[in-house]
């Protein structure tokens, strides 16, 4: 690990106070290098979503330390003032459902974020087209989300997550609604994108089909993570 990617040390999250307090995360330690795709698996209620929300700067962890690249972003408190900007510039999201904006066509769904941050529309669309070409959906750039298949929608969502070239992507069960062929295709894309853009990708999943594809897996149980070496099965 060269200091890039994301490192989480002793992260915890407690809901409530006193007798009613619940420790959703007790001791989370993770490290994901740039270009690496790791799995985060665990039973329902184990704290996966809470961890994802903490990593995504959506909720406040109770303690621990998070380092993104060379920057400590959390150390028993946020070290970044503007969490929204942190999410926008440093973290990409891919969801179980694509959640594309229904009134924007494919290219503008992907180009939206840079457009909203002031990049000229043409330049943002050019960047989006480059990503969509890499994801092999460049032929659907003018289509509306409702006109796309599930796999195409997910690829567009991945492109949206990558548009700002974030160092980390958090993927929340990205293959859940897909059949095994499409699920493997999405995993292939994520691995390719991770390598191409030097992005650290954390995939939260229950999907038995894709678990063997990870080289490293973090199990989370009762709010504690355990690292395990995965099968790293070929995606080709």
């Amino acid at each position, binding site marked *: 690990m060269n200091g890039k990617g994301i490192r989480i040390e002793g992260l915890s999250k407690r809901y409530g106070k006193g007798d009613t307090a619940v420790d959703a995360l007790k001791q989370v330690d993770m490290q994901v290098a740039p270009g690496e795709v790791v799995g985060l698996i665990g039973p329902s209620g184990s704290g*996966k*979503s*809470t961890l*994802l*929300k903490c990593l*995504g700067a*959506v*909720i406040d962890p109770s303690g621990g330390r998070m380092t993104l690249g060379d920057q400590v972003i959390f150390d028993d408190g946020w070290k970044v003032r503007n969490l*929204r*900007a*942190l*999410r*926008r*510039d440093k973290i990409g*999201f891919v*969801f*179980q459902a694509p*959640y594309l*904006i*229904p*009134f*924007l066509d494919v290219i*503008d769904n992907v*180009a*939206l*974020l840079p*457009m*909203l941050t*002031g990049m000229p*529309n043409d330049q943002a669309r050019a960047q989006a087209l480059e990503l969509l070409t890499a994801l092999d959906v460049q032929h659907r750039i003018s289509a*509306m989300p409702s006109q796309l298949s599930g796999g195409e929608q997910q690829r567009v969502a991945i492109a*949206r997550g990558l548009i700002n070239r974030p160092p980390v992507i958090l993927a*929340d069960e990205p293959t859940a609604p897909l059949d095994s062929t499409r699920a493997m295709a999405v995993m292939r894309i994520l691995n390719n994108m991770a390598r191409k853009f030097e992005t650290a990708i954390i995939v939260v999943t229950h999907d038995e089909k894709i678990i063997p594809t990870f080289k490293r897996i973090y199990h989370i149980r009762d709010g504690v993570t355990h690292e395990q070496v995965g099968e790293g099965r070929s995606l080709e």
Partner: protein
Amino acid sequence: MISLAGRDILHAWGKFVFTGIGLGLLIGVTLVMAGVYRGMVDDGKVLLDNSGADLWVVQKGTLGPYAESSSINDDRYRGLLGIPGIAQAANVTYLTMQIGRSDGDVRAMVVGIAPGAAGTPGWPPYLIAGRQITRSHYEAVADIASGFQLGDYLNIRRNQYRVVGLTRRMVSSSGDPMVFIPLKDAQQAQFLKDNDTLWQNRRRTEANPAFNRAEVPGLLAAINASQETSQSVNAVLVRLQPGQAADQAAEAIRRWKRLTTYTRPQMEAILIGKLIATSARQIGMFLIILALVSAAIVAFIIYSLTMDKIREIAVLKLIGTKNRTIAAMIMQQSLALGLIGFVVGKITATFAAPFFPKYVLLIPQDSVVGFFAVLAICGLASLIAIRMALKVDPAEAIGG
């Protein structure tokens, strides 16, 4: 920068257009209501303009002749002509009544005009067909809105009048069309008693020995004749010589003739401030209610549209979209809805106005005020939806 509101509207244009049309009809009604008020004010001003008077001389202590009844002797105008600065003075009577015609009747204001020629105060200042009244009796000039045509006959009390001229936009402050007839006929129509009352009065006079004196032949007949004719008019319309100050002349009439006199601004204040004040308040209440209903509708629609996009808003917030971008999207949609509504409303009001029985005056000033009021209402109405959108937790996009 991309316009999220614009793209959403284009995507769901049917919803926006139909909602805008519904809102537009409401805004159209609001504009027409404002137009009705403006029409009433304009009717009042037209009434004053068309009378051709600079001063209105009426019974002392009254707000006549339009807002209250007023009765003064028909020879008082002679004395007024002797006051410096007065160019013309003419008697006039006003009586609002149902006028009979062949196919029913029509509500109109009957104006009794003094003998003279076109230009005499009280006379219709212009005609669109026919001629002015030239005979002393049984001729009439009618406003075209009354429905009479040249050569038609109309019935006022017991007499029949032939329409010899038509005029336009001669209305009372209530918007009733005017019918001009000779003063003597109007006085008779206004003060004429029925036959039983005439007979009863004659009998009582005859029974009074002071009036029925054998040694004074003709006394009884003279007294009866005086009781059966009217020497009263409602007002004297005065036109001043050029350059004469109206207040000065009015003060002279008040002082020397002991009559109440109103200048043009005073008469306008009576018409607008007193005669149509209740109607104006009524319309004002309607305007407030319509504004509240419009605001409620816009708020509900924008709230519903925003509720439909909760997940997308959560995603936008999660990926780092600024609050002001989301707020602007909702606000712009609300304003766009208002804009569509206003355009539809303005078109509706413009085309519907001529079909209203009373004069509806749509003035650009009201449209401009209405436009900004609609935008303000829509802006305020969107605040609830914006508040809700800003409270959306970006974590909702992640689930769990």
